[in-house]
């Protein structure tokens, strides 16, 4: 029988549908895999309640596990504990930055998210900290829109929740 680690490595091959440089495992959406012979249960959690990519991720998980020989695949959604950007690994954050998305710069434990006081966000292109928020909401639920005042490029910031 396959180990959890092996199964997770299969799921590592599934990119996030909106941000293809990181996998759904790195994103923290896959919470657990519970294999039992030829059957398996996968526990996932949504990044945002209304994330429209969840259905796509479920379909991708099913397809991948079918390819790997599993027969009955059950996908269960859990809301607890709620997803947080703290689950993104340093490696994943670096990948985001290379892709042009500024990774979350704060930890949710410092509460700056709640008070609205942000640390300076680094421009993913020119690394300047001279940036300004254009919009609290961006192209997807998980991002806000910023602009760099040095290179003048607008960029997405992965909101810290």
């Amino acid at each position, binding site marked *: 029988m396959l180990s959890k680690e092996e199964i997770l490595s299969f799921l590592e091959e599934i990119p996030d549908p909106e941000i293809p440089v990181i996998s759904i495992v790195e994103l923290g959406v896959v919470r657990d895999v519970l294999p039992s012979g030829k059957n398996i249960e996968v526990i996932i959690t949504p990044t945002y*309640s209304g994330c429209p990519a969840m259905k796509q991720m479920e379909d991708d998980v099913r397809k991948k596990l079918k390819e790997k020989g599993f027969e009955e695949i059950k996908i269960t959604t859990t809301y*607890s504990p709620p997803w947080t950007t703290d689950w993104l690994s340093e490696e994943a954050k670096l990948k985001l930055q290379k892709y042009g998305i500024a990774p979350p710069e704060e930890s949710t434990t410092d509460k700056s998210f709640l008070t609205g006081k942000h640390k300076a966000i680094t421009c993913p292109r020119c690394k300047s900290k001279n940036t300004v928020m254009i919009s*609290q909401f961006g192209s997807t639920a998980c991002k806000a829109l910023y602009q760099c005042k040095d290179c003048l490029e607008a960029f997405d910031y992965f909101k810290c929740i």
Partner: protein
Amino acid sequence: MTKQEALFNYTLRLADNSLILAQRLCEWTSKGPFLEEDLALTNISLDIFGRAKSLLEYAARVEGKGRTEDTLAFFRNDRQFTNNLICEQENGDYAKTMVRQAMIDCFDLMLYTELSKSKDETIAGIAAKSIKEITYHKRHSFSWVDRFGNGTEESKTRAQNALNELWRFSGEFFETDEAEQLLLKEGISVDVKAFKEKWEKEMVALFEKAGLTLPENTFMQTGGRKGIHTEHLAYLLAEMQALPRMYPDAKW
């Protein structure tokens, strides 16, 4: 009323409040005052739709009669919806949409913070997830009320008109019913009356900061819980439900 019936009614009402508000907000899609606000409202609407979906799924599971989140959303008539009247009010201008949102965000944040301690694990889980999102929404709506109130004469007048029109729907937030009372004893629902004063204080502080005044001697509207709605809900449902009712086999 059994505990199961109470839990179904209670969860469905939480879902209805989210679903109807989300549908209203998405009416702004492509019509926002500028691009960033268009994106903001679409995102906020999406979060609230997500919450509605989770709650509807759970309500359907609790009921256990084969209904799904889709049949609950699309195949009930206006009299069977139990959302608060404020959620179904028309968007009006942007000041009205934002005053409505600020009132609801402030209430929802208190409600879901309490619900995250519910003894019902599913409700507690959905609530814990929602807190983060509502916090973000509230920052947005509060900042707009402040901006409108302290903006031009025109924006202030519009925000004041919105407040005059919407305040009469705030009494409904703090009503309770049999289902809620029953679940309160079980540690599942929360006592909304316990944070009424706190909510009013926060609202008054926001409106004072924005230079707006609360209307006096307001007669509080009621009826949502009993399925007695303002005329606006039926029109909203007609649009929201048209496709699945015309093509019941449609899949998406």
